[in-house]
């Protein structure tokens, strides 16, 4: 079965950077939207307030006349009280009187809330004007005049705000999109440059690396002195380490879009082959290999599964201590690779699969190995569990459906 839409092959180094760029752009746009909303909101608010003040100033003239009329009537009532006890009313407005202790003396108001500390204000659907009386007729210090609010000014304002602020908002958003592109362009160029560099470097690594490994293979070790054999082994270990890195980089860059060839894969020979490949590295660190291997199979691409095994074995050796142990268990539907190395700090366990995440600074590396592993096992719907104790070692458990 062949598929080309594998997320692994598409996820080259630049994809992560480009994702970061998209994230940065999204964050910028989010902040920009908040800023623009705040700005247009404030503009709308101040415009509304200014129009409200304008409306109040128009109403105020009329309401002050009403207040003067009512004050004159209160004066008359004060003079003729208690013979006359009917509070003066006017069909043009409602009114109320309060004493200096804010106690209501009489009220015909319809508006629910009265605020004697303001001069003119809204109270529900009404407008209130508060006039302070010079003489306390009937004991009243505050005379409140109430008229119904004419809502036409409000509707006009809403229309004007929508007509003006909506295009302004759209204009700002377009400007924001343009700015976001402008800001991230240098970042995008750098990413593309880095991408090209990694791709070219990976490509250039192939020929010399192949030449080194091929020539090492061809050399006759039997005729060498033990010192030279040791030196050659060191060269071979170094070359194979670079080779693993090369394979990872190739997987991420050069093999992008390469078809996936899933097949019935017998894992036992694959594991044995990879253990043989890493045997020299294990020997150099005097690592003891414990293996319990029984035939196991899965439906997958050999190239991808080899990357998974290589990366897990490479880590188990790289982060192991000299004279440590590597345990490899293969059963149907299960692969366990455990080491007795430095272990992974608990706080870093959650991020070990992130690209460029390195859980120990004691060894080199790009931090791309486990990211590749995760991508591949996710693609095949396998389960991965990492158990680790600092100073004791790490165990990676892979599970998949038996076939």
């Amino acid at each position, binding site marked *: 079965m062949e598929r080309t839409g594998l997320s692994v092959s598409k996820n080259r180094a630049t994809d992560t950077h480009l994702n970061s760029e998209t994230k940065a752009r999204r964050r910028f746009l989010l902040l920009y939207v908040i800023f623009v909303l705040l700005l247009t909101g404030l503009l709308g608010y101040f415009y509304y307030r200014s129009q409200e003040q304008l409306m109040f100033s128009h109403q105020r003239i009329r309401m002050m006349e009403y207040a003067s009329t009512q004050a004159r009537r209160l004066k008359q009532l004060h003079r003729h*009280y208690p013979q006359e006890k*009917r*509070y003066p009313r006017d069909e043009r407005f409602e009114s109320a009187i309060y004493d*200096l*202790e804010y106690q209501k003396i009489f009220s015909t108001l319809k508006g629910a809330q009265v605020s004697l500390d303001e001069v003119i204000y809204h109270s529900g659907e009404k407008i209130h004007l508060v006039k302070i009386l010079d003489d*306390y007729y*009937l*004991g009243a*210090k505050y005379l409140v005049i109430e008229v119904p609010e004419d809502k036409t000014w409000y509707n006009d304002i809403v229309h004007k705000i929508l007509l003006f602020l909506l295009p302004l908002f759209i204009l700002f958003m377009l400007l924001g999109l343009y700015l976001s592109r402008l800001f991230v362009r240098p970042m995008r160029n750098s990413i593309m440059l880095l991408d090209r560099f990694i791709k070219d470097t990976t490509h250039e690594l192939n020929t010399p690396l192949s030449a080194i490994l091929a020539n090492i293979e061809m050399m006759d070790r039997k005729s060498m002195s033990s010192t030279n054999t040791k030196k050659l082994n060191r060269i071979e270990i170094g070359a194979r380490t670079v080779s693993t890195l090369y394979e990872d980089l190739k997987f991420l860059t050069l093999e992008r879009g390469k078809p996936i060839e899933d097949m019935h894969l017998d894992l036992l020979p694959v594991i044995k082959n990879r253990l043989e490949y890493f045997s020299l590295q294990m020997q150099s660190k005097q690592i003891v290999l414990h293996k319990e291997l029984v035939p196991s199979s899965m439906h997958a691409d050999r190239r991808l599964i080899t990357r998974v095994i290589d990366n897990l074995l490479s880590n188990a050796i790289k982060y192991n201590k000299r004279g440590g142990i590597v345990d490899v268990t293969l059963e149907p539907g299960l692969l366990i690779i455990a080491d007795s190395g430095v272990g992974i700090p608990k706080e870093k366990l959650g991020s070990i699969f992130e690209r460029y995440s390195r859980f120990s600074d004691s060894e080199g590396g790009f931090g791309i190995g486990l990211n590749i592993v995760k991508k591949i096992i996710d693609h095949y719907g396998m389960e991965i569990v990492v158990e680790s104790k600092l100073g004791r070692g790490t165990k990676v458990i892979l599970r998949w459906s038996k076939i």
Partner: protein
Amino acid sequence: MNQKIRKSIKTNLLLIFVCILPVSADNAFEQHCVPCHIRMDISLQRTFMNALLVYGGRENMKEGLAYYLRNPRKDTSVMDEDYIRKNGIKTPIKIERAVLYEALEQYWQKYTVMKKLY
């Protein structure tokens, strides 16, 4: 027999006490204000409306009138000049502060326009 007399005395005392209590509380205004105003033919309603025009609220009026009644002066009187020219300024009142305030409260309650307008 003795018990009956004692019981009768107790009942009578209790009745007298119950009757005296409200009378003495209500009497501050009637006792210390009304007689003079009647004698001098000065309308309490008019003085109240004049005081209301100057002092406004209940507490302010009580404080203002209490001060005036103890320290009456032409310039702090709520009455107009014609009245003062005709009747002069009253003599300072000399009753206990609590009684004075009680009388003023009763004065307010009796003449306030609150809840009387319609």
